[in-house]
């Protein structure tokens, strides 16, 4: 069954307890990195029936928000250095967050420094919106992304 898997034996971590976030912690409509984390932590890994959180691809520290400039940076850590699924994970994050922010917010998605053998080229591809748009029109890729986003396997 595991034949062909890129990382056949990933390390699985316990899910973090979901903390009830206090509403209006900032007393305004500020974008809270932890709220974003709650929203994306359960995306399923493209290869395994585990969430990105369980595989430590994402953590609470993955998301930084610059409210003033309207910038959101998400860094994720692929389970192995040569993960060819990194671009699929990036697409999942983009699709999931597409309508989450006010339109003027700019989202950058990167692999965390040193976590991927082709870090620069993966980051370039993840942030080329024309390639992202084209990838999401590709039925096979779209299906893969949708399976990660709407999976009940977890």
């Amino acid at each position, binding site marked *: 069954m595991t034949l062909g898997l890129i990382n056949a034996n990933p390390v699985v971590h316990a899910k973090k307890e979901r903390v009830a976030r206090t509403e209006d912690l900032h007393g305004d409509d500020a974008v809270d990195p932890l709220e974003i984390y709650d929203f994306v932590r359960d995306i399923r890994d493209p290869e395994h029936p585990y969430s990105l959180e369980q595989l430590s691809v994402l953590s609470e520290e993955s998301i930084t928000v610059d409210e003033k400039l309207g910038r959101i940076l998400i860094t994720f850590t692929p389970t192995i250095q040569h993960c060819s699924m990194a671009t699929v994970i990036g697409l999942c994050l983009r699709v999931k967050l597409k309508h989450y922010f006010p*339109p*003027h917010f*700019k989202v950058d998605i990167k692999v965390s420094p040193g976590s991927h053998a082709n870090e620069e080229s993966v980051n*370039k591809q993840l942030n*080329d*919106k*024309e*390639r992202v*748009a*084209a990838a999401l*029109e590709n039925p096979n890729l779209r299906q893969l992304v949708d399976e990660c986003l709407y999976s009940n396997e977890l």
Partner: protein
Amino acid sequence: MDFSEEGLELKEIQRLEGHNDKVWSLAWNPTSTLLASCSGDKTVRIWQRSPSTSSWHCKAVLEETHTRTVRSCAWSPSGKLLATASFDATTAIWELIGDDFECVSTLEGHENEVKSVSWNASGSLLATCSRDKSVWIWEVQPGNEFECVSVLQGHTQDVKMVQWHPIMDVLFSCSYDNTVKIWAEDGDSDDWHCVQTLGESNNGHTSTVWALSFNPEGDKMVTCSDDLTVKIWDTDSITMQAGEGYAPWKHLCTLSGYHDRTIFSAHWSREGIIATGAADDAIRFFVESKDGLVDGPLYKLMLKKEQAHDMDINSVQWSSGENRLLASASDDGTIKIWELASIT
């Protein structure tokens, strides 16, 4: 003309709504009476100004031909044909027949997404480029037939835009591989080949080059990039006009520190004003500066419009008409018509 002393402002004339996805690209017809726009919603819209009210309205929606995003559009120099390039790997040719635009030809051959299309000055040649890394040159034949006369390989990554020189039959392409390539025909053999590559080693860009545009004389070119810079290039106009066809291009100056997100579009106006549109939602205008002639011509920021759109700006296009009209297209699904007008 010294624009800096004039006191100009960018006035929003109208906001055009209709597309229900990103608007990727815009093209004015040669007389600037029609504006074509294309979108992630798989359609092309044709906008026209009504003479009575002076306001713009959607004259036609070109749909049910492309099956994926329409990435780019270009009018033939005669204004009779509109070419549209799509992620569905085809380029469609549309003709206004009676009151309707009809798809009269479909150009197939690219392996995947076609990203840009451009007509040469005489309308006898068409160029297309794709994620398949190739640039194709098509010859326009009678009866709306298009024959591929050359497939140009050379870029190492997807090709973002093709643009013919405004006077000569020399083709320019820019790419995700960070370079601009210049293609010309061999005098004898009718073979097209790459005559120059403008890359990092010639003071070129350090990331994806998204667009390029020429000044009206055709001896200067502007390029814009994901490296957040705008670069101006020039060539020897005397050699160019001597009929040699191609004269080498060299880097003139780099404008950096203005846009702080990817610059997707740059367009040089008839009067010499460069407009740029970027992912920072802003439009900027650059003009030649007469102050620093000691070191040759430099360019300076003349005006900027922050928050011109709610989202990324993908295309800015000057009209060729009398007024300084500029159209901009955005991820927010809208097109805006602006006038660069004197402050009143």
